[in-house]
């Protein structure tokens, strides 16, 4: 019995290690990765010179990012810095240079697009079909990976310039 103890311990260890990949790999939540994409979208977008030294990154609606979004607070984007804001009033969106629309339906996106028509703002969403509705960058999850589509016409109308590199990585560019 005593002689078998090391072997039993080893078998138990092996069993625990067998479960370990699941436990250890369960550490890249969707919205942590999407927060990193938000930052990269900001890096690869050009705003007019008259936009100030702060880029207000606003989440409109119920924030799906949680504390991950707070990690972007104060991050440098060229000569500017990101300021994270959570917005519940559509009128307050006029102070934003980047808006992530956290709404579940196309109706909510239409309201935001109407409210921000003519404003200098990069509008981002992760709702199927949002790019075709007029959102400049729309994220999707395909095979557990993040992809995005770009609406170049919407970006131009919003007076922001998406870099050619960003456009080359998009799954679809609507012109």
């Amino acid at each position, binding site marked *: 019995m005593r002689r078998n103890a*090391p072997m039993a*311990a*080893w078998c138990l*260890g*092996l069993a625990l*290690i067998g479960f*370990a*990949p*699941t*436990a*250890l*790999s*369960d*550490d*890249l*939540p*969707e*919205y*942590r*990765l999407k*927060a*990193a*994409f938000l*930052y*990269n979208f900001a890096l*690869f977008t050009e705003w007019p010179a008259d936009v100030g030294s702060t880029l207000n990154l606003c989440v*409109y*609606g*119920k924030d*799906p990012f949680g504390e*991950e979004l707070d*990690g*972007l607070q104060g*991050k440098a984007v060229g000569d500017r810095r990101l300021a994270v804001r959570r917005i*519940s009033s559509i009128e307050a969106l006029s102070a934003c240079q980047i808006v992530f629309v*956290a*709404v*579940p339906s196309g109706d*909510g996106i239409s*309201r935001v697009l109407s409210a921000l028509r003519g404003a200098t703002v990069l509008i981002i969403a992760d709702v199927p079909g949002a790019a075709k509705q007029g959102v400049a960058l729309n994220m999707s*999850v395909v*095979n*557990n*990976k*993040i*992809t995005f589509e770009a609406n170049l016409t919407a970006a131009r109308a919003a007076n922001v310039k998406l870099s050619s*590199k*960003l456009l080359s*990585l998009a799954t679809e560019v609507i012109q």
Partner: protein
Amino acid sequence: MSAQPLCANECRAATTRSQRKLLLAVTLTLLLAIPGTAKSFTLDQLLDMPIERLLRLEITSTQAVEHRDAT
């Protein structure tokens, strides 16, 4: 007669030592070989990555759309 148990004790001790070393080596090898540990990234680590690499990463948990309501 008296030398045999002594030899047996020494042999058992030597065997136990070598078993322990083998167990340690195998366990360390297995721990290093776990592929899942490479998927664990903090936000700061993700922000330092080029976007091309972000596009290749696989998420491990998704959040339901019903949690995201406009107010």
